[in-house]
């Protein structure tokens, strides 16, 4: 078994806004080992990006964070800024969901890669340039030498995303926090990028937390998957178990809303209703109001994560009433 490289314990994030508090992350616990890929999926707005950004302390100033984020035994949430800066971008790197929010618009891509290399390696100038060209090539950007001098706005959406992946990999991180790293990529380049990342995972033991909405990507790349809903983890386990035998009603509903082999142009089946307001902590199970399996206690008592198979935990009172899924057909 892997020893966990990263342990996130009871992470909570609350934003203070002019209109009150937003409880974006509400007690999230998970760990990732070297050479392991953990998928993080869940409803839009459920707190995946906030969870990821909390790990290297990259949240807005209006965020209050509690819990522990243990990295080699030290708590990243409390170590001094100086020490954190040495880790961030180096051992722990991040791919942001929206490249334009993370890239510097007035700095050529090449210089943004160079900054990481200067900070976290002792390469000389020539070696850094060679490395930058090599990195762009690895993420499938042709004419890399010319592209290094271009600015983010001169790249396509997917090229920006790949440039950011190149920046994140520049210093050979031990942990990659990848927030929707391939959403702007076509399937063939996505395939190439995932192959590259999995190679780093299997050959260099890189650990990865991969946030994605693409359940096919989860099935193809992750060892384990964690499902989030309204700031909480509702289910975690080995990918095959979670997909074939979901133990949380939200996971079950999510898997059902995928476009399958139904008639083209037919209406899809989204989960009815809206996620709960998160301006005050939600009592009971946050999914209960939309859940077709809900029973009275679901709205009052918060279910705790319970094991249903080794490594497969879920926080759902209906866990044993959910149907096993029949094998999914192809796309």
């Amino acid at each position, binding site marked *: 078994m892997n020893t966990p490289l990263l342990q996130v314990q009871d992470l909570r994030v609350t*934003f203070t806004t002019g*209109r009150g508090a*937003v409880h974006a992350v509400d007690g999230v616990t998970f760990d990732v080992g070297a050479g392991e890929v953990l998928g993080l*999926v*869940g*409803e*839009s*707005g459920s707190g995946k990006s906030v969870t990821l950004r909390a790990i290297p302390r990259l949240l*807005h100033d209006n965020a209050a964070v509690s819990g522990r984020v243990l990295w080699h035994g030290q708590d990243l949430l409390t170590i001094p800024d100086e020490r954190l800066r040495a880790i961030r971008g180096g051992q722990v790197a991040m791919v942001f969901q*929206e490249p334009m*929010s993370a890239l510097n618009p007035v700095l050529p891509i090449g210089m943004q890669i160079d900054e990481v290399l200067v900070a976290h390696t002792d390469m000389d100038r020539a070696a850094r340039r060679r490395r930058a060209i090599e990195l762009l090539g690895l993420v*499938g950007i*042709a*004419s890399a030498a*010319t592209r290094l001098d*271009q600015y983010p706005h001169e*790249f*396509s959406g997917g090229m920006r*995303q*790949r440039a950011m992946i190149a920046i994140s990999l520049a210093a050979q991180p031990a942990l990659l926090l990848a*927030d*929707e790293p391939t*959403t*702007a*990529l*076509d*399937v*063939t*380049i*996505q*395939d190439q990028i995932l192959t590259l990342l999995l190679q780093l995972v299997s050959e260099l033991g890189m650990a990865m937390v991969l946030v994605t*909405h*693409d*359940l*096919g990507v*989860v*099935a*193809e*790349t*992750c060892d384990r998957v964690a499902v989030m809903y309204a700031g909480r983890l509702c289910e975690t386990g080995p*990918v095959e178990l979670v*997909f*074939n035998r979901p133990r949380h009603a939200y996971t079950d*509903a*999510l898997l059902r*809303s*995928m*476009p399958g082999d*139904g008639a*083209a*142009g*037919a209406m*899809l089946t*989204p*989960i009815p209703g*809206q996620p709960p*307001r998160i301006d005050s902590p939600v009592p009971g199970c946050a999914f209960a109001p939309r859940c077709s399996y809900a029973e009275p206690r679901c709205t009052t008592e918060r279910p705790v994560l319970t094991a249903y198979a080794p490594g497969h935990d879920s926080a759902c009172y209906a866990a044993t009433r959910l149907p096993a899924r029949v*094998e*999914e057909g192809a*796309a």
Partner: protein
Amino acid sequence: MTLLAVEGVSKRFPARRGLVDVLSGRPRQAVHAVEQVSLEVRRGETLGIVGESGCGKSTFARCLVRLYEPDEGAIRFEGADVLALQGDARRNFNRHVQMVFQDPYGSLNPRMTVGDTLAEALSVHAVVARAQVPARVRELLDLVHLPADAAERYPHEFSGGQRQRIGIARALAVEPSLIIADEPVSALDVSVQASIVNLFLELQARLGLTLVFITHDLRLVKHMTHRVAVMYLGRIVEVGPTADLFAAPRHPYTQALIRAVPHVKPAAREARRNRQAAVTGELPSPLKPPPGCAFHPRCPIAQPACAQAVPALEDRGGAWPVACIRVSG
């Protein structure tokens, strides 16, 4: 009936030249983002545009709404020359043709609340009476499944997928007849995505909305588009009815693309390890497009003739056009 007709549109971006380039007399390079694209969008249809990252989809979309002036070619909307529109006619065009941008973060004003952004769209085009603006804003937010209190919040207070839906609400606000949506649902989980797709399908059925849908999600393309155009390095290589094209793709690039869709199947990870890369070989650069068919350096069935001339987009004995000299019937 044709709503939007595109004829031979090209867009190139000159590359910056460094001092060394100038001194050594190197010729000025250009990124050939869109090359000779001709396409029609029919009233009431959903046309999908797919293709490799960087192949020119967003640039083409921006040409369609006149955010970029094409270097060559013509665009006609309801018969009128879009590139010559002025004054009221141009404002009218701007209302009826809306774009949902690929990058919601960059396309929203960070200093305006979401409510103000939507209200602005509503008032610029005088879509509803002033007194009805707040109610309409709430309605729009509800349509895209954002909470009502979203109106008072600023863009940075939302998740990526929530911001994406703000962009969709803004496009819908002015009740356009054509929406050009650039990856509009890429940041949404499958359930919210299903709601938004249903919303588009409903608007299409009720109001005859026409959609140009740029996406990398082939499952979605298959589900919701009537026709699909496949782009490769700035050009359209195949365009046809979606169901038929997915069942029997004609261009070798389309075939590779459809093969590479990840499957949500048990043991998918094992399958992936044993699978060959979908497309191999040197990636093409729009700074130096390969001669002839741009796909030939990576094409499994290429012949010497493929490097000679750019293949025309023609029927070639089939039911829809394809730009490949190796295809017949």
